[in-house]
């Protein structure tokens, strides 16, 4: 079976230059599988999700590579077809639940808009579906929430609404871009459980972008570690936490806080590791520029 999302040799550059933000990235996500995308800020982890959804910033362009969604080459098709395909099959759970919702509109229409405008549902069907979805994400009293404005809800509640909204049109692929970074730990736990529950129930393929190796171990089956836009390591979660292969992954794991081990010092990612991984990438870059 071919993977539902297959990214091959994808490179993105700053428009008009040869400065690469993504360096020949290849990865795949199967239906029913959650794939973690881990890296520090500037690693390009969000860029990959944006490239798939076609929402890259204007200053970034794709230099080479393929993005196959359900066996169709996204980058080869006309813009309009691509939007339609993505609208029907993919969805995003964004990072910041406050800015992702329009503050001056009620929750209800913000969920149903897409069902009515893009999928052509009737208003009543869409409204019923929205209530059903809120129930699915364990919101008590969906009708009251549908009639609320975003500022009337807590951060965790807003993120639930966004998850409901992402799953509204039964997408086959969901990209979660740091969905719990803005939340408290206790709320984060509930939301992570909810995301996993929804993903399992719908059998969705999911790309889960995060900087937190702790979070990855809770929701993902496989993970990809990125540094400076380059894939450093790809592994099954169980293997990875038993012992990462690459030096940078080891350092990253050692720097992740673990309160269970009292008074051990967190190991900072030291300069030697960064220098080594940077040299590795520059060597690969040389090959790319001459190739």
């Amino acid at each position, binding site marked *: 079976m071919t993977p539902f999302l297959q990214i091959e040799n994808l490179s993105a550059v*700053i*428009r*008009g*230059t040869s*400065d690469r933000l993504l360096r020949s990235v290849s990865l795949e996500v199967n239906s029913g599988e959650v794939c973690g995308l881990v890296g520090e800020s500037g690693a390009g982890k969000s860029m990959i999700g944006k490239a798939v959804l076609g929402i890259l*910033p204007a*200053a970034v362009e794709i230099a080479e590579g393929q993005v196959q969604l359900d066996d169709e080459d996204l980058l080869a098709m006309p813009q309009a077809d691509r939007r339609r395909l993505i609208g029907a099959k993919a969805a995003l759970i964004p990072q910041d639940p406050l800015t992702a919702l329009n503050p001056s509109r009620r929750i209800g229409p913000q969920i149903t808009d897409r069902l009515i405008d893009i999928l052509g549902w009737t208003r009543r069907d869409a409204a019923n579906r929205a209530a059903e979805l809120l129930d699915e994400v364990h919101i008590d009293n969906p009708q009251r929430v549908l009639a609320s404005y975003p500022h009337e809800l807590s951060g965790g509640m807003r993120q639930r609404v966004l998850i409901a909204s992402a799953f509204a049109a039964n997408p086959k692929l969901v990209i979660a871009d740091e969905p719990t970074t803005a939340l408290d730990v206790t709320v984060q736990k509930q939301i992570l459980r909810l995301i996993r529950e929804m993903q399992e129930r719908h059998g969705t393929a999911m790309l889960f972008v995060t900087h937190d190796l702790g979070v990855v171990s809770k929701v993902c089956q496989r993970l990809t570690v990125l540094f400076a836009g380059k894939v450093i390591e790809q592994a099954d979660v169980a293997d990875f936490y038993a012992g990462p292969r690459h030096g940078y992954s080891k350092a990253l794991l050692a720097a992740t806080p673990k309160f269970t081990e009292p008074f051990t010092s967190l190991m900072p990612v030291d300069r030697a590791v960064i220098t080594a991984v940077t040299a590795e990438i520059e060597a690969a870059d040389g090959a790319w520029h001459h190739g």
Partner: protein
Amino acid sequence: MRDGRGTVKRKAGLRLWLSGGWLAIVALLTLLAGWISPHDPLAQDLFAARLPPFWVDGAEPGFLLGTDSLGRDVLSRIIYGGRIALTVAVIAGLATAVIGSVLGLIAGYYRGWADAVISRLVDIWMAFPPVLFAILLIAVLGTGLWSIVIAIIVIDWTRFCRVVRAEAMNQSQMDYVSSAVVAGHVRAAILWREIGPNVLPTIVALLTLEMGIAVIVEAILSFVNLSISTDAPTWGGMIAEGRISIHQAWWVLVCPLIVLFLTVLAFSQFGEGLKDRFDPVLR
């Protein structure tokens, strides 16, 4: 976003140079009007009336932009009119900026009763229709350069006050203001050293915009003959006179109109450019 910043910078540079260049030319011409202007702006010569500008057939050398229906040189009148326009722009602009900004900073940073008083005053002030207010003021003060300047200050200080107050409130929330308190600064010092520099780009942008507005207000008031004495050349006055003879001598209307338009545009673009230049992140 290295290249993104680059683009912004290039644009800001070009904008700044073009608008600044135009303003410099206008300022220079008006400052040196006595030496530069080819004719006396008031000298009438009915035998040389309605001469067209140099690129039209029948033009007379020495009258680059032609003459009006009384035979006065259009170029000389534009230069002398610029003198009045720029004087009003600079004096009225600076005075409104200073008064409005000081009140706005006090209201936005100190809050409390000072804010309550200033904000109420602004609310009440802004409820008056500005044009009516201006005409009323001129009626009380009498026509003349200073009346126009005073009218603009009295009406437009609220524009600065409101924006600067909001910006100062915004900046007061920033942690570097808290850190200045932790450092032990007195409040006036925080206002001056931490908030002031961060509000300054906004003030500069508003100031140049205000100068443009002052030019327009002066033109409007001269257009309705409420400006300086009727025979002194002003852009608004020229436009009003040119309107009458539009079919025989369109240049009398169009030339000052273009200069007015370019000057007001240059002011606002100059402000935007300066604002970017002031921003250390974009610089």
